């Protein structure tokens, strides 16, 4: 892979990403926050994020795919249990899950 190709790839990836954002601003020009379509879009947005998360946990690509599915699921459950048990503390829940993930991957 040449340096020139990598720079072109970054440019192409940036254009692809910014297109999603810019087209979103353009499409939203006539949408009001009290409209039905606004609430529908909100549901779709959060459902897509939820779908992305489920896919990363169960069918990851890249270096996460080197880990076992059961460890990823166990650490996801740890995250949720800690989050709801400790007054919805985001930092504590995420760090507990990540630490358990590293330890389980190391020892199992």
């Amino acid at each position, binding site marked *: *892979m040449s*340096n020139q*190709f*990598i720079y072109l*790839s*970054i*440019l*192409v*990836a*940036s254009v*692809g*990403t*910014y297109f*999603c*954002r*810019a*087209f*979103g*601003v353009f*499409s*939203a020009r006539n*949408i009001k*926050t*009290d409209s039905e379509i*606004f*609430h*529908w879009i*909100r*549901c*779709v*947005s*959060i*459902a*897509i*994020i*939820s*779908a*992305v*998360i*489920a*896919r*990363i*946990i169960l069918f990851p*690509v*890249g*270096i*996460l795919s080197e880990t076992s599915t059961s460890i990823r699921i166990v*650490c*996801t459950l740890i*995250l949720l249990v800690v*989050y709801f048990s400790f007054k*919805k503390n*985001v930092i504590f*829940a*995420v760090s507990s*899950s*990540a630490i358990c*993930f*590293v330890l389980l*991957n190391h020892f199992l």
Partner: protein
Amino acid sequence: MFAFGAFLHSAGFDLYQSFLSTFFTFALPGQFVMAETILAGGTLLNIFLAVLLTNSRLYPMTVNITPVIRNSNIPKWKEYLGAHFIAVTSWFNFFAVEKSINQEDKFDYFFGLGGFLWANSVLCTVAGYLFSNLVSHEILIGLVFINPMYFLVMTVSNLKEKKLICSIFLGAVLSILLNDLFPGWSVLIAGITSGTLGYFIFRKEINE
């Protein structure tokens, strides 16, 4: 982003490429897809389509947040510039406090929040690249795992309205069920179908 910088270092990218990737893209899943497609020998068209598909979640998120932060005093170019800061983290964090911000201040608040997160992401990518040799491969994988866990906690924190709960639950289940049938499209199909179902099933629910 630290893990992404470290990953790029181990994959043979240089520091400027790591910096530019986060500077101009600022959407981690798409950045990983770009790097992995390059490493797999993909063409520029492969990269464009893979990143477009991966980051297509940004489209409904932008359509959702733009009317909320819109302000007649904000010029159009600034709206398009601010759109660069729309990412899952800034989106969730903004909506967590949105109701307590005056309408005329919402754009500036989001611009500041998103800009801060973006600048941090760029710095963390560079730091990850420079200090990757201090981090073992196991720790690196642990750092990558933080990203979906953080997204999940922020998603769960939205479990307040029935239509959102239904959309979140169905989105997760459908994307898993559809993964083998439509590997590249499962997230989009699951998201649009689940969001639409969640919205229509609980349409009567009073919107908060």
